[in-house]
């Protein structure tokens, strides 16, 4: 009997016939397909990023560029380091003592991993949406106003104007315009997530980091958020971690495939999903493992 290991897809033997499931459709207007990647402006440039949870290394020399006003999807099986990578980009991992990153993450001309980085300013410019909707224990209005009040000095009328604008951009205004004074966590899960997006974009960041933003919400709400991502990318650079390959194919321009802490392949979403060059990528996107 041959010992087969399900979790090691590299051990596939040549010469055997294999059934290849149909490839995922990539929407035609994906900008990743035809454009000259090198000529695009970098928003964030990551070089040689290593990450450690205590003594355990989770990322190994990640090098990747996130292009301005593009959606970059980060895909890969559970535990491959995609969330870890994302959490390095706004240094949210600094909340935990035993986590550390080394290497270089260039944003706005500086290495944000440097000690002297002003984390408050960094996080104003790089917003984050989490897997679980996490409205603050305050009203819908105050949730969206949180970042605005934190970073800007605004008159009352300007504040409410901007809150309204953020809620409109997040495609949730019509659902909450009569509930602005109700607690944020009284909304449904999908609405809460869009509220969190509104909260993040209200302070006008440059980048939005999304860590599996749809994994805790229903399909209808997911569709709304995907639509929203497509709308937001004209103004923001979006990094989207997802375990849903269809989602990556639907909304992203570029896709990075992570496996065991390494970036196996990075390219336009069209290429990654239609003709991946790496075997592991192909096996993953065709649903052979992960």
């Amino acid at each position, binding site marked *: 009997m041959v010992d087969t290991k399900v979790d090691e897809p590299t051990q596939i033997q040549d010469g055997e016939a294999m059934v290849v499931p149909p490839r995922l459709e990539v929407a035609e207007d994906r900008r990743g397909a035809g454009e000259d990647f090198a000529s695009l402006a970098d928003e964030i440039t990551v070089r040689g990023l290593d990450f450690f949870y205590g003594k355990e290394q989770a990322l190994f020399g990640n090098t990747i560029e996130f292009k301005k006003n593009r959606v970059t999807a980060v895909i890969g099986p559970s535990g491959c380091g995609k969330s870890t990578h994302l959490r390095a980009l706004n240094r949210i991992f600094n909340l935990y003592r035993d986590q550390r990153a080394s290497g270089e993450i260039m944003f706005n001309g500086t290495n944000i991993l440097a000690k002297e980085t002003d984390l*408050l300013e960094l996080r104003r410019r790089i917003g984050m949406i989490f897997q679980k909707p996490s409205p*603050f224990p305050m009203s819908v209005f105050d949730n969206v106003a949180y970042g605005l009040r934190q970073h800007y000095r605004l008159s009352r009328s300007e504040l409410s104007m901007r809150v309204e604008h953020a809620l409109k951009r997040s495609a949730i205004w019509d659902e909450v315009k009569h509930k602005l004074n109700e607690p944020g966590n009284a909304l449904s899960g999908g609405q809460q997530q869009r509220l*969190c997006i509104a909260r993040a974009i209200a302070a006008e960041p440059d980048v939005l980091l999304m860590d599996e933003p749809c994994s805790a919400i229903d399909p209808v709400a997911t569709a709304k958020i995907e639509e929203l991502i497509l709308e937001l990318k004209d103004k923001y650079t979006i990094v989207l971690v997802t375990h849903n390959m269809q989602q990556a194919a639907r909304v992203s321009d570029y896709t990075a495939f992570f496996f065991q802490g390494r970036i196996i392949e990075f390219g336009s979403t069209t290429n990654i999903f239609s003709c991946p060059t790496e075997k592991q990528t192909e096996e993953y996107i065709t649903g052979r493992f992960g």
Partner: protein
Amino acid sequence: MSAVAETPQAPPMAPMRRRSVTGRKAADLVVKVFSWVGALFGIAVMAFVLYEVMIRGLKAWNVAFFTQTWPLDPMSTSGGMANAIVGTIIITAGAALIAIPIGFMAGVYLAEYGRNGRVATSIRMVTNVVMGVPSIIVGVFAFAILVKPLQHYSGFAGSVALAFLMLPVMARTTEDILNLVPNELRESGLAMGAPRWRVTLRVICKAARGGLITGATLAVVRVAGETAPLLFTALSSPYWITGLFGPGGYFGGPVANMTKSIWDGAQSPYPHMQALAWGGALFIMVFILGLNILVRLLFQRGKEW
């Protein structure tokens, strides 16, 4: 070939013999009966205590009990515990004023800043030890630092002794409750570019406010019925508290309080004094019960987040 494992073949095994059900059912019955008996016994003892205190205490409850001061003449049949009730409320409130803010901040440190650091671990160990210290030792301690040097008893010394008992309870409950707040909320707050203290106070503590109020109330309940720490500090007095300073004041002299008065009354050979003690016991019980009910109500509200 595809990466799918074959179904493992079962090794050759003899058919399994069934175990009898009767034995297990009997064991179940025995355990059930014992736990019932245990529960009934426990409840019966408590019900008996409650019944005695109610019957005897209610007899002492009259207008004089709630309006008059402790009788100076042990033979008289008038007098009440009004001054002791007021004194207990003042001493307990003083303790709460000292211990709740400090305990809260200590809890915030443990949960938010210290976490598993060396300092936090040692503070946690110290609070555990202090929680186990008998209250009479706390009373002697307060006597040594506040009564002996100043040459007089005082309500304030009593408050300090009670605060010393409340502090670890407040710190640990605050820590436990803040630890219940999911980390996502901390991360979300920090990801907005808010500084840590702001996230802690405006987001985390707000999310946990129900539990925090519950914790503070529990800390008050913990000390409301303490006698030993007051024996050496507030002592007791047959008079009303006269203010802050001076021999009858909060800082200046002994202050009447429920538990010490109950002690005095119970020690007394005179039936009226004993009756007053019973009335005081009932009052303290009702007072603590009321606080507990308040805690329950607050806790239910606190669950909403």
